[in-house]
């Protein structure tokens, strides 16, 4: 696995060798009713500055755990995560994190929620309001600034969370299935917007998804993770030109090729897993 990754690093060497995030021999265990429960098993990954990485894997395989470690909200049981050359030991202020749940503050309006990172940075009211209007327009929520989160739909709340994330203009963005709850139209709009902004600002992105199309369409590299305890099964470089037209991409044969490859990888993993939990104990008994 490591050899393959190194080969890929070499291949991309001409573009940028600046590693921003490095996962080294990451293991993570939780205590589950007294028993140690391994979630992540030996993950090694180097992410370059400005790179768009999608983490693709089955639900509950510990993808979010990797994001939590990058954000400094969680420490690995062994191994280390380093960010911009320093080990992440406390909360990482250089990343923006869009979690699966939106965690909007219910007592603040949509505009009030987007304002939080701007208030923290001490931006004055006039500039704040202007920026909020821009962000609302960006996520297609113009006119909804005065609503409370409880009153809008789940998809709209996601878009508010995205606007809040972008308001903070972080150097690195961590996203945990951010577009899962959206309709196809909105999803493609926001994906395109995300790609445009990241391209413009050179933002590094770690993007967790279980949607194969999304994983291919957005990524520079797609990291395919196995079921729990998760380890990297394969890293697939997506050599599609940028800027990408996310609609046009669907009829691109290379794109279709990548999707097919990932489908095979995922399906293979699933059947392996079935075999592992399936009849093997009985077979063992018969042999004994």
């Amino acid at each position: 696995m490591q050899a393959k990754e190194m080969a890929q690093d070499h291949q991309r060497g001409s573009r940028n060798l600046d590693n921003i995030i490095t996962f080294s021999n990451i293991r993570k265990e939780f205590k589950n009713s007294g028993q140690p429960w391994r979630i992540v098993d030996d993950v090694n990954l180097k992410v370059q500055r400005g790179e768009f990485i999608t983490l693709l894997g089955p639900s509950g395989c510990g993808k979010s755990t990797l994001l939590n470690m990058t954000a400094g909200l969680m420490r690995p049981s062994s191994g280390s995560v380093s960010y911009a050359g320093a080990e992440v030991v406390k909360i990482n202020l250089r990343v923006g994190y869009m979690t699966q749940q939106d965690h909007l503050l219910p007592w603040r309006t949509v505009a009030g929620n987007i304002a939080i990172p701007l208030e923290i940075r001490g931006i004055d009211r006039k500039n704040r309001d202007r920026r909020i209007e821009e962000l609302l327009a960006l996520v297609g929520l113009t006119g909804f600034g005065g609503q409370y989160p409880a009153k809008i739909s789940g998809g709209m709340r996601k878009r508010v969370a995205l606007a809040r994330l972008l308001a903070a203009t972080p150097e690195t963005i961590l996203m945990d299935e951010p577009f899962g709850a959206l309709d196809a139209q909105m999803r493609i709009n926001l994906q395109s917007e995300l790609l445009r902004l990241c391209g413009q600002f050179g933002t590094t992105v770690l993007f967790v998804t279980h949607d194969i199309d999304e994983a291919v369409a957005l990524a520079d590299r797609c990291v395919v993770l196995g079921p729990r305890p998760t380890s990297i099964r394969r890293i697939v470089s997506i050599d599609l030109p940028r800027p990408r037209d996310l609609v046009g991409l669907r009829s691109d044969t290379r794109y279709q090729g990548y999707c097919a490859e990932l489908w095979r990888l995922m399906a293979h993993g699933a059947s392996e897993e079935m075999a592992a939990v399936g009849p093997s104990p009985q077979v063992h008994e018969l042999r004994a």
Partner: protein
Amino acid sequence: MTIIARIAFLILLLLGWEYGSIALKAEFFVSRPTAIAESFLHLLQSGEFLYHLSITATEAALGFLTGSAAGVAAGLLLGRLTSLADVLDPFLMALYSLPKVALAPLFILWFGIGMEMKVILAAATVFFLVFLNTYTGVRNVSVEQLAILRLMGANERHLITKVIAPSAFTWVFAGLRLSVPYALIGAVVGEMIAANRGLGFLLSDAAAQFDTAAVFASLLGIIFLAMIFNGIVKLIEGMLMPWKVNEDRREATV
């Protein structure tokens, strides 16, 4: 449509009550709406009703204010001093499980049978509800919301003003709203046990004289007062916490 149905229901109820009471010769036990209205009008005209209402309202309001102020203060204090809270926990729980009305005889012994005793009784009831809500509110701030803000570079002051205080406030207000009817219960029960004025006194006095119509008239008065109290709380809540109103109006989604 609902309004019409409600009016129709009320008319049916009153008619059934009126003629049922006469037909079953049960007037002594359940009175009749017309007799109750007459008794109520009499109380209103003589000024008695407003007098007793104002007494009960004052007791409940004072009890509510003192009880909730003490409850918020104690909740904030113990919410911060967690080790003290751990020590006191079983004692507070023991006191909480005691029906506060059972303290009435003790309060009569200490404070006499004047208004003070009703205020204290109402305050004791309110205190625990507000205290427990405030305490929970201070302790139950969403860890995730704090983490999200920390990632945005928030310092302690930001966390307190933007997350902890508003989050605790919603709990405090929930406690306040919950305790309004209990303040009224404290006042009315206090009056029923020992008093010579207030709606509770009016109620027990009428019952002692077997004046069923006056009993129902007093109950009507207590309902009236409770509705006013709840209306005021609802109004204040709508002003201070507009997002809560929205939550109430939201349709259920699965």
